[in-house]
């Protein structure tokens, strides 16, 4: 589904990603862990197409198509989704209307007509039930005055509505209490299928108890230095990152 080859990226002239290689197949869940400042969020933003991040080298291939040159909205149309750590507030635009615009713009780009209103309502109802979202919530202005948990739940609701091929969840667990964490993880798990893939970016093992990864990668100073199964996450939780840093130093 996604192949990243020798990806280098800079922000304001400073190199943050220093040669990332990653391959993700349909049906898989990958976790990317690492200490603060290791480049996790940058990686997510570069895959999603943030303009301020300059991709200086390497390739991002989504289903055999190199997408590095595409705008963020064009990548979204091809099935890339990113859940934000800090979703933006849009006063005056309801969650429902926002979703209508997002879905119909995507359909337009795919040469499809607008989704019929009835179908849209049905979909909204189904997906909001999945995330245990109240009807009233849908008519509120997007993210305005939402609690941290509501914002994250709303992000996964959007993911459910847009049905992306590749979802990147950037620190989705931050600011969540245990109930919200359960609802959000349940949502993600129910959306998993053999045809899509999920990348979970997180600091902590906690989320990975709920969304169980097939692979865990450790990002350190802009490079993936270790990859393994879910047991790697447990080890990191118990022992921190220092042992990896030491090993990497020795190897270096």
């Amino acid at each position, binding site marked *: 589904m996604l192949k990243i080859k020798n990806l280098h990226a800079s922000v304001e002239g400073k190199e943050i990603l220093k040669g990332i290689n990653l391959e993700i197949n349909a049906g898989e869940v990958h976790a990317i862990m690492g200490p603060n400042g290791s480049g996790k969020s940058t990686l997510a933003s570069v895959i999603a197409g943030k303009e301020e991040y300059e991709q200086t080298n390497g390739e991002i291939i989504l289903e055999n198509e190199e997408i590095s040159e595409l705008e963020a*909205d064009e990548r*979204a149309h091809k099935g890339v989704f990113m859940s*934000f750590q800090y*979703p933006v507030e849009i006063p005056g*635009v309801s969650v429902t209307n926002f979703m209508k615009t997002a879905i119909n713009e995507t359909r337009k780009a795919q040469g499809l007509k607008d989704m019929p209103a009835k179908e849209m309502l049905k979909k909204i109802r189904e997906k909001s039930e999945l995330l245990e979202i109240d009807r009233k919530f849908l008519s509120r202005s997007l993210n305005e005055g939402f609690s941290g948990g509501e914002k994250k739940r709303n992000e996964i609701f959007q993911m459910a509505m847009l049905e992306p091929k590749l979802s990147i969840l950037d620190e989705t667990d931050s600011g969540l209490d245990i109930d919200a964490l359960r609802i959000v993880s349940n949502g993600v798990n129910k959306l998993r299928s053999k045809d899509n893939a999920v990348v979970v970016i997180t600091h902590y093992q906690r989320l990975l108890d709920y969304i169980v990864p097939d692979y865990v990668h450790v990002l350190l100073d802009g490079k993936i230095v270790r990859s393994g199964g879910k047991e790697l996450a447990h080890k990191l939780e118990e022992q921190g990152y220092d042992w990896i840093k030491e090993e990497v130093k020795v190897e270096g």
Partner: protein
Amino acid sequence: MELKDKLISSFFAFEEQVDVNNDVHELRSKAIKDFETIGFPRKKEEDWKYTSLNSILKEDYSLFPKKESAIDYNDVKKYFIHDIDTYCIVFIDGIYSSQLSNTTHDKIDACLMSSALHSPKYKAIIENYFDKITPKDSGLNALNTAFSKEGAFINIPKNTMADRPIQILNFSTGNEAALMVQPRNLIVVGENSHVQIIERHQSLTENPVLTNSVTEIYAEKRAQLDYYKIQNDKGSASLIDSTYVEQKQESFCSVHTFSFGGKLVRNNLQFFQRGERIDSTMKGVTITEGKQHIDHNTLVHHIEPNCESHQDYKGIYGDKSTGVFNGKVLVEKEAQKTNAFQSNNNILVSDKATINSKPQLEIFADDVKCSHGCTIGQLDEEALFYLKTRGIPAKEARALLMYAFANNVLDSVKIPELKQRINKLIAQKLNVNLGFDL
């Protein structure tokens, strides 16, 4: 001949069209002399520092349209708020159109200035209110008073709720190569009374139009008035709108100004608070493009204690357009416990757009709460990225963010159909179709 000279010399011709044996005519005669002395405002005047009228005063305006014009309602229906019942006072090239209007004298008066000025029935009102609060140091006011003849006259007697909103529409047909019109409106809202008014100027062709409009509004004790100005005219039309509001105790007045169109628009909006526990609210959304120039000049004069004022102006400036916000809050020594808030937020969408924002607070009382804030910025890149990751292309994403930025001003529009209309105008102005009504 320069426009000023042309105006002065045409006053004699004007006198043949009106009843000169009338108190009002004394005001006119004095006003034309004032105009001769003061003339048009110049850039060296502090209040006109950022706005030059030179380019619009150069046209050879026709001052009295040659003939009455008729317009088919269906051609202009879109400029009316037509999905609810309203009273309409409609002018075509400055002349009353009975065919397009729907005036009333039932419980309230929503009719014509020309009849109010000369009808014995309204003599007392004219004597009490006409030309009482227009500042006399303004050449433009003097000019309007000198040629005052037509406009809307709205009188809501004591203890009366106007049963529907009143629309004031000024169309210009383009039958003249260039036209200058000077509407004069008088609105009196009696004690405990309530009215909503929607005003719009609209030219129907690309011929130049200059409107020098003066509106006086009087809100008596506990009166409530909501006034909405839709300024979405053609790029060839310019508007100088001067609106003066005098409020008595416990009255509430709000003026919303939506400025999207026009070549040059200057809004002078002044509130005078003569009583306690008054609330004065003025809000505006300005969206410009091309070389438009839109200027908001506001004043709230806090004269008595325990009053409030709220100002909230949002501006989005594109291309090479220019905006001005000059908001003055004057708090007299006696006006203790005043709460005055002013906020002016601007987004520059283009590198070549300009905004001049100048808040002015003059406070002579010592126990007041006054705040003002002004911001000038660009659209938030992170927010744009967020919307794009949801598949929303850049143009639509920008429009959504601009809409969100202006939203709290729209939120306080109390007529839902009007709000919907303004939302549509914004979508049109931003040239987007978001698949739902904003």
